[in-house]
């Protein structure tokens, strides 16, 4: 049962990499922390600039276009648009480098 030659999916079929269909609750928790960290950084940068009486285009644009973690719906937090899926959604963890990327909004109409 535990031998080196046990017949598992990957041994029988060759290359098999599986990633779970949905995020675990702990993954979701860590994902929320990451979203909040980005929100906090934008906030710190914005406040520091405001103190000096300055603004930055990138910061203003982010604030007007992107929802904060609290404003986002669970659907947008944990899933993203995918034209190939029947439901047009897939888990956000399917996005390459998803822990170091910002994926917050949907294309218009979705």
């Amino acid at each position, binding site marked *: 049962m535990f031998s080196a030659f046990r017949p598992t999916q990957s041994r029988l079929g060759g290359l098999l990499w599986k990633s779970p269909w949905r995020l675990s609750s702990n993954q979701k928790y860590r994902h929320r922390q*990451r979203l909040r*960290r*980005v929100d906090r*950084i*934008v906030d*710190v*940068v914005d*406040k*520091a*600039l405001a*103190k*000096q*009486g*300055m*603004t*930055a*285009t*990138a*910061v203003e644009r*982010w604030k007007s276009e992107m929802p904060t973690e609290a404003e986002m719906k669970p659907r947008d937090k944990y899933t993203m648009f995918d034209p190939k899926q029947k439901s047009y959604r897939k888990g956000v963890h399917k996005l390459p*480098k998803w*822990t*170091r*990327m*910002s994926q917050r909004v949907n294309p218009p109409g979705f």
Partner: protein
Amino acid sequence: MASVAPKMSWFKITLIRSGIGMTERQNGVLKALGLRHRMKTVYHPVSPDTAGMIMKVKELLAVSEVDKPLTQAEIHAKRQPPKGYYIEKQGIAREDIRGS
């Protein structure tokens, strides 16, 4: 418009996620900020230029606003553990104890 110029402040920027595998553009920004490896801390003056650079790689950083920048030597000294002992100087320590 403000008659008194606001006090200058700095961004304390630490790279907490690696830039490996990120785009050329983002790695270029990290290089421009002087962040060569993880847990490296740099100080940059608060300006729209710096803000734009931070925004480009915000997922990889920890950022805070500070009043004055530390030098590399000061950052290094802060990271050293306590020695576990101190050298007593004759007379001085004793005076302090009596006084208090």
